[in-house]
């Protein structure tokens, strides 16, 4: 298939700190060196990679450095990376908001970019007037908007307010209207920054659905930046992973998701828990780790979860019971697992380091979950010296199957398998 976007040796430098006195002398220096003496730009030499956490020796940084990639027509490509990795800079250059310092981008087809929803909305104008204004800003002709007006209003779901100034809108309605305009852009390439972070869950689904429709059904190229891995997995086959302004890897989105979760969140190492009982520490919890059954950090629906637990036992324990509970993001407990009935594990625990792994069948629906860990001594069926660790870690369950987008399922917590027969 033909290439839609080709990026070659793209770099962008930024100057840190304030622009003010002192910069003019450097501007003159730079001008004289590059334009009159035809030397290499002095600032490009001293530029450093953009690691925001460490202090650099120079105030010139590469926000992007030697970026190379190609995107084929009809592909949906995600761009991920931590804050300051250069995602937004890349999108800005692609959408011609700012220009690169070096390098070249070739694009085939009309580009519509959505770095923000509702750019140029005027609060005094009505919804209808703003549709025209915003549409024109995004590059639509008036005829095109006339043609799609009904569809846009319908998609936004704010028909009743359409002739009211948008300053009277709730922020959600505002975003709905804005996205509705953007979703109806007719362009071969759509560039979307994290605009889905706003709006209610229902509307987010609608947006993702619409964008999926654009890329899969419409055969258009979509570039999508998000921190939300679940959203990226839904839309994109391939992902570009940026790190400190450099392309770390370009790969299939599922493979890359593993890598991303490994780097991003990783294992949560807990400090050793002192004073577990009154007489000093009975055991330290060294590590609690949650992985999928293939050893990766990315948990898909219907895929077993493995919980790895490392404990350092200080004194001999009697009838220890370990358990954990899984809660949804609002803190409602969904289920609780423990080894109370079979005491095999508890009986095998010895002094020193013990590694325990627990496999849980995963019936969770997609979403964010929290985990509580607890242990107690079971003496004559009574809890003693119980210890409870709340929210030790959080994890995300991701839907792998993109085709089933059923709102009703998504609202539930548990995802069961049912077998249907007809006689």
């Amino acid at each position, binding site marked *: 298939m033909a290439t839609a976007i080709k990026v070659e040796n793209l770099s962008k430098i930024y100057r840190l700190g304030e622009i003010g006195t002192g910069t003019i002398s450097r501007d003159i220096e730079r001008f004289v060196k590059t334009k009159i003496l035809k030397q290499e730009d002095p600032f490009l030499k001293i530029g450093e990679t953009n690691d925001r956490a460490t202090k650099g020796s120079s105030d010139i940084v590469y926000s992007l450095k030697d970026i190379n990639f190609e995107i084929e027509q009809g592909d949906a490509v995600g761009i991920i990376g931590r804050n300051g990795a250069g995602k937004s800079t890349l999108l800005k250059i692609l959408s011609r908001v700012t220009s690169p310092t070096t390098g070249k981008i070739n694009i085939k087809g009309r580009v519509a970019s959505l770095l923000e929803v509702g750019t*140029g909305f005027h609060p005094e104008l009505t919804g209808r007037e703003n549709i025209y204004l915003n549409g024109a800003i995004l590059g639509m002709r008036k005829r095109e908007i006339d043609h799609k007006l009904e569809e846009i209003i319908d998609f936004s779901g704010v028909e009743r307010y359409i002739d009211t100034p948008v300053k009277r809108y709730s922020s959600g309605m505002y975003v709905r209207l804005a996205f509705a305009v953007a979703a109806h852009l007719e362009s071969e390439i759509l560039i979307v920054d994290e605009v889905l972070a706003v709006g209610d869950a229902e509307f987010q689904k609608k947006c993702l659905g619409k964008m999926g429709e654009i890329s899969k059904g419409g055969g258009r190229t979509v570039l999508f930046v998000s921190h939300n891995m679940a959203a990226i997995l839904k839309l994109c086959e391939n992902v570009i992973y940026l790190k400190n302004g450099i392309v770390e890897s370009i790969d299939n989105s599922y493979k890359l998701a593993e890598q991303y979760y490994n780097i991003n969140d990783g294992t949560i190492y807990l400090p050793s828990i002192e004073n577990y009982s009154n007489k000093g520490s009975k055991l330290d919890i060294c590590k609690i780790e949650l992985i999928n059954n293939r050893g990766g950090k990315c948990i898909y629906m219907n895929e077993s979860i493995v919980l790895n637990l490392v404990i350092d036992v200080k004194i001999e324990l009697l009838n220890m019971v370990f358990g954990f509970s899984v809660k949804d993001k609002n803190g409602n407990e969904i289920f609780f697992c423990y080894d109370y009935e079979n005491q095999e594990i508890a009986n095998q625990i010895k002094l020193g380091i013990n590694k325990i792994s627990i496999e849980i069948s995963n019936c969770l629906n997609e979403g964010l979950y929290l985990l509580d860990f607890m242990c107690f001594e079971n003496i004559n069926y009574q809890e003693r010296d119980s210890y409870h660790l709340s929210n030790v870690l959080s994890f995300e369950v991701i839907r792998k199957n993109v085709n089933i987008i059923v709102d009703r399922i998504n609202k539930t917590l548990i995802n069961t398998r049912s077998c249907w027969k007809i006689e």
Partner: protein
Amino acid sequence: MQASKDNIIEEWDLTIEPQTSLFELNFKDVWRYRDLLWMFVKRDFVSFYKQTILGPLWFFIQPLFTTIIYIFIFGGLANLSTDGLPQPLFYMAGITAWNYFADCITKTSTVFKDNANIFGKVYFPRLIMPLSIVASNLVRFGVQMILLFIMMGYYAMNDASFTITPAILLFPVLVLLMALLGLGLGLIITALTTKYRDLAFLVTFGIQLLMYTTTVIYPLSSAPEKYKNLISLNPMTGIIEAFRYAFLGQGQISVNTLGYSALFTIVVMLLGVVIFNKTEKTFVDTV
């Protein structure tokens, strides 16, 4: 081999590179976004009188009050000549023309700063924005011209001494010159103030002072001979004099003064567009 390579290059619709040629102005792109220009004009006009009772009537108030004050101070107290014209007509004509030019220059001179938010989020030909400012000011100018016509009608019925001359055919040219002059200067200022804001302070009071160096409150004919050439150096002098001559029959119109204004305008406009074009690429990083 070379031919096939050229073919590949031609396939791209758009190439983004750091440096483009100084004169690559991309008017095709501006033309493609002409609907947006119209939307901006409509936005400016509609949002101006939203939630007001008098609505577009407010366009009249400012020139009307300014005229009254000028009649009082320059006509009444300072006794400046008005070339035999009724004072309200004389001042009104000058103010209407000057205001259009002044509005164009002050509004376009902050276009990068005011629209940094939109410009930072979406691409459209940046020139659309200043062009839309000039166009929406044209609407305001049109409304104020109506006020001038009403006053002319009133004085015509009361046998005042003014005449409309055939030079009125020059009116579109005069408007175009004022618009382009204001736009050109505004573009230069906005491009120069993206990084260093110093110049912006000059604009606000500079325009005010500049008005006294041209023939808004006095006729060129009443100026002492040694200052005449100095006053004519202001490119607006030729335009305002021609404007007054066209509508009221008093004023000094000549090919020389108008030619000078036109030449000045063209140079400023070209310079403005080139500088603006150069700045628009990266101003987002420095504004």
